[in-house]
């Protein structure tokens, strides 16, 4: 690791994040890599874990998957690859294999962003490297998705990881990634750095499903660099309770005609605090962005749905859409759409609406024989089950199934 990175991280060790409440990192156990045994086949994961994996879209049979990576706590226990055009492996192995890879580390996410990035960088410098490396070859197209699972199996563990995803020029790559905790884990901390490098003409879709336990704290940090004519599509689904999650991925559309779409589906339950944002910096001529989110708050949950579009050069376009339904008096949704235009001739807009379920809609469904509760849950599920755009047909269908499954609990 570069000495400069370590220096920066050292300085930021105590730096609080401007979003999300501060987490005391000392409360968690820093497990070493290698605590869990590697497995030879994804189907060898313990039975209990298997069901959890399925819930977050990770299929242990690896049917119609281009490759798989599984990390448990701090240990990469499994990786496999069925495709000839994409690579997937633990970041530690990739760093040994490719000398050039270090040049991609901490370039779109700064190590001194906050204490969480700093801690992850420092643990890395001590040899505790979690996370995966994915790379698609130039001019390749893999229609089957890669799948990655970050699993927390031990109580009070601090999971740190660093993912690097490189889509070489004119390649297409799809990733399903699930994060989950074991059934017997109640509290834990997940810190995940993810850096995307999407080169000229490439397309990456990244569909993430989270399924944490009720006392788990989550602080991912994500940066995406999008090149000329490249596309990045991010889909995020969370409908299960968590203690708190705060994430604000930033995409840098530096390439000409680059395009970014963020689609988020947030179901707040119990006492969850979900602080979820998406930020796009439109720096490339003709670049465009779309941020769409649907949020439903139940019980005592708090949802902060943030969106930020910054247009910095002429001829860029952006739209931000944020809709929320508040289902209980003890819950709340705070929609924060932000637009910053600092060039002439750009087109940016936003649309935000937070409200309750329309009485008229409930009545309509009761007049078809549904009870009020059935009607409300049908409307809520309908509200959240937005059409996820940009996926190839098979993956779109599968994602729809996963979404339907996630929405059953709502």
């Amino acid at each position, binding site marked *: 690791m570069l000495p400069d990175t370590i220096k920066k991280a050292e300085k930021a060790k105590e730096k609080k994040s401007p979003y999300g409440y501060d987490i005391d990192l000392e409360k968690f156990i820093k497990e070493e890599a290698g605590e869990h045994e590697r497995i030879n086949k994804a189907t060898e994961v313990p039975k209990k874990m298997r069901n959890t994996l399925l819930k977050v879209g990770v299929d242990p049979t690896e049917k119609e998957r281009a490759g798989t990576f599984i990390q448990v706590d701090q240990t990469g226990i499994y990786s496999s690859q069925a495709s000839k055009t994409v690579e997937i492996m633990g970041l530690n192995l990739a760093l040994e294999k490719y000398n050039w890879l270090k040049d991609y580390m901490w370039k779109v996410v700064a190590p001194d962003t906050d204490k969480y990035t700093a801690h992850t960088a420092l643990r890395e410098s001590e040899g505790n490297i979690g996370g995966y490396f994915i790379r698609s070859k130039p001019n390749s197209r893999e229609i089957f998705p890669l799948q990655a699972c970050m699993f927390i199996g031990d109580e009070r563990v601090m999971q740190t990881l660093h993912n690097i995803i490189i889509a070489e020029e004119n390649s297409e790559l799809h990733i399903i990634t699930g994060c989950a905790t074991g059934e017997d884990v109640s509290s834990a901390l997940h810190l995940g750095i993810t850096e995307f490098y999407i080169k000229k003409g490439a397309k990456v879709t990244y569909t993430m499903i989270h399924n944490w336990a009720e006392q788990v704290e989550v602080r991912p940090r994500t940066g995406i660099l999008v090149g000329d004519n490249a596309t990045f599509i991010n889909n995020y689904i969370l409908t299960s309770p968590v203690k708190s999650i705060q994430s604000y991925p930033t995409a840098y559309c530096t390439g000409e005609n680059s395009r970014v779409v963020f689609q988020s589906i947030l179901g707040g339950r119990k006492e969850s605090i979900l602080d979820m944002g998406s930020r796009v910096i439109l720096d490339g001529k003709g670049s465009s962005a779309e941020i769409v989110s649907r949020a439903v708050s139940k019980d005592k949950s708090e949802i902060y749905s943030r969106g930020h579009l910054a247009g910095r050069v002429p001829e860029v376009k952006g739209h931000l859409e944020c809709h929320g339904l508040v289902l209980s008096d003890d819950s709340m949704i705070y929609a924060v759409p932000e637009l910053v235009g600092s060039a002439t001739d750009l087109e940016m807009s936003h649309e935000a609406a937070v409200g309750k379920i*329309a009485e*008229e*809609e409930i*009545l*309509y*469904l*009761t*007049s*078809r*024989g*549904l*009870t*009020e509760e059935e009607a409300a849950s*049908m*409307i809520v*599920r*309908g*509200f*959240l*089950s*937005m059409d996820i755009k940009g996926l190839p047909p098979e993956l779109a269908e599968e994602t729809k199934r996963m979404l339907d499954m996630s929405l059953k609990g709502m």
Partner: protein
Amino acid sequence: MLLEITDLAVEVEGKEVLEDIDLYIDKGETHVLLGPNGSGKSTLFMTILGFPKYKVKKGEIIFKGKDITELPTTERVRMGIGVSFQNPPPIRGVKLIDLLKIENGQTVEEELNPEIMETAKKLKFDERFLERDVNMGFSGGEVKRSEILQLLAQKPDFIMFDEPDSGVDIENVELLAEEINTLLEKDKKPGQRQRAGLLITHLGYILNFVRADIAHVLLDGKIACTGNPKEILDDIRTEGFNGCVRCCQTQ
């Protein structure tokens, strides 16, 4: 008697809308409800359906021999009441096909009953259309056809149609009328029909295709006149609602 309404008075948002309503509808009958805008026709529908905003101040509603005046809508519908709305709301994410399954007693996971699919085709809906969110961006005519299709899936015993023909072109009115006749078992002899209907119409054009037995004219929240649908419609056409009521009173 399928439906018996006696001495009904109804308030909406603190406003007295209906008063002194007596209405008896038996199996096999089709009644027509006429009246100027704002006279309370939709209010009477919503009251029979049991929407909470419509407060019954007086009187009772008996359906299939049971007092349903205080029953929630869901239970009334499950007892066999069905309605097609004048202006149903669009619901984002709730697919017409899923509603059809539920109305037909299926679960959303099942394939749609092929019979319903056939009926949908008769009403000029293809599979793609059924996948759409209900009433979202439907044209005026599509809304009416979708309402009738849902009733065909539901097969209620007492069916209320709130202006099924308004905003519908002539060809489509005939198409709708045909399905309304199916719903009301018009192919059977009156004595063999199990179902009954109450139909609101302004123009009466649909009555050229759906044979009605009795017409009522609602004026200012009261049933001002009851009689033969054809005669009443003719009176309204020539003398207006007030003229029609006057001649009702002289008869």
